[in-house]
């Protein structure tokens, strides 16, 4: 007969964060928590919590409930989930709580503590150059609003309103939607469109696939300047959603260009955000 912890490993996987989240939700029947609360109580990052919750939802162990803009998670009432709950409750409590994310090493700080100045690896010249503050001014969390209809719909392209995405897909679409809103705020009238492309748009994406976007601008004089302008929003959303948000910039003239090359294929598969 298997030890309880082994049974848990086999059913939920070996991720201690996933196990901690499941234990958290199963500890109190009917307990319903939102993402931030779960992330805080499981002592992990929002991105990791999102990722692990998506896996638990996909496995049918956790249910996701949306109320307006807020999403709650609760343990499922399925027979399998109830059986797993009985296993979890039979385990000694130290096994059920979240473990430290990694072994401490000399010179390293706790995950939640601000690092000592001499422990942060940075160049003073870079830190004082205002890169972060400049980028932070560009990136401000976008107000929650319905995605704007693209002014020009790409032939054959789907939109965000496509029906019934899975939970993981919903998270990705949310990240992509937030990114598009931030890009609209940053670029205003010079923006011609933001599109999701690649595996995520084609529906063939693995769980950890990037959110690949194309930003179409009226013209692009300095590629590096556009990268810098969107740098902070990409990093912030990647952290927040636990999935990398990447972008390439395409000029309007190229985007509307002729039938040669790969662009028509990219365009036909792209999803307007």
């Amino acid at each position, binding site marked *: 007969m298997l030890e309880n912890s082994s049974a848990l490993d086999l059913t939920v996987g070996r991720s201690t964060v996933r196990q901690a989240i499941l234990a958290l939700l199963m500890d109190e029947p009917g307990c319903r928590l939102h993402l931030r609360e779960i992330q805080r109580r499981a002592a992990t*990052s929002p*991105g*990791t919590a999102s990722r692990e919750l998506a896996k638990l939802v996909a496995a049918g162990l956790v249910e996701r409930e949306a109320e307006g803009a807020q999403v709650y998670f609760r343990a499922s009432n399925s027979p399998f989930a109830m059986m797993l709950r009985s296993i979890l409750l039979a385990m000694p409590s130290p096994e059920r709580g979240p473990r430290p994310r*990694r072994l401490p*090493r*000399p*010179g*390293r*700080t706790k*995950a939640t*503590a*601000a*690092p000592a100045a001499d*422990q*942060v*690896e*940075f*160049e003073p010249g*870079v*830190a004082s150059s205002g*890169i*972060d503050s400049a*980028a932070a001014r560009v990136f401000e969390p976008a107000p929650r609003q319905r995605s704007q209809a693209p002014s020009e719909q790409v032939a054959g392209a789907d939109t965000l309103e496509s029906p019934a995405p899975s939970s993981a897909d919903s998270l990705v679409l949310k990240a992509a939607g937030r990114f598009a809103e931030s890009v609209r705020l940053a670029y205003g009238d010079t923006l011609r469109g933001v599109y999701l492309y690649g595996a995520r748009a084609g529906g063939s994406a693995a769980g*950890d*696939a*990037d959110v690949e976007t*194309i930003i179409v601008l009226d013209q*692009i*004089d*300095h*590629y*590096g*300047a556009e*990268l*810098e302008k969107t*740098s*902070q929003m*990409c*990093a912030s959303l*990647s*952290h927040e959603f*636990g999935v*990398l948000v*990447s*972008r*390439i*910039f*395409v*000029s309007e003239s*190229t985007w509307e260009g002729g039938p040669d*090359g*790969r*662009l028509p294929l*990219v365009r036909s598969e792209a999803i307007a955000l």
Partner: protein
Amino acid sequence: MTPRSAQLIDGANQALASAQRELEARDLDGAAERACVAMLRLAKACLDVDGVSAGPAKAVCSEYGERFVQTGIMYSAYFRWLLDAADLRKAAASDVAAPIDYDAAATVVERAEIFRDATTRFVARSTR
């Protein structure tokens, strides 16, 4: 420093030297690509200190962000620089993205140098 970390840092130095040569030769796509490779190898060297072996670039970026930037161990700009470098490489390899300019390539090479210095110090200190 573990043998694996040392090997990765050596590889990063070679990629960075190539990036600098290609920048001088105005091969901007090549310079951006080599600088990105250098930064990814350096990020892998950091992860090796943490006992983590990550393969694809996206996994390296994710793990690096989660383990070293979200925890405040490394300067947050490094995560941005890593993502920007990866996206610049993607643009350099793309036949639809706008062409990258000299400043963009020079910036990513310069950042790779700073990243190399910080990573070398961090790895040396962490495995002392």
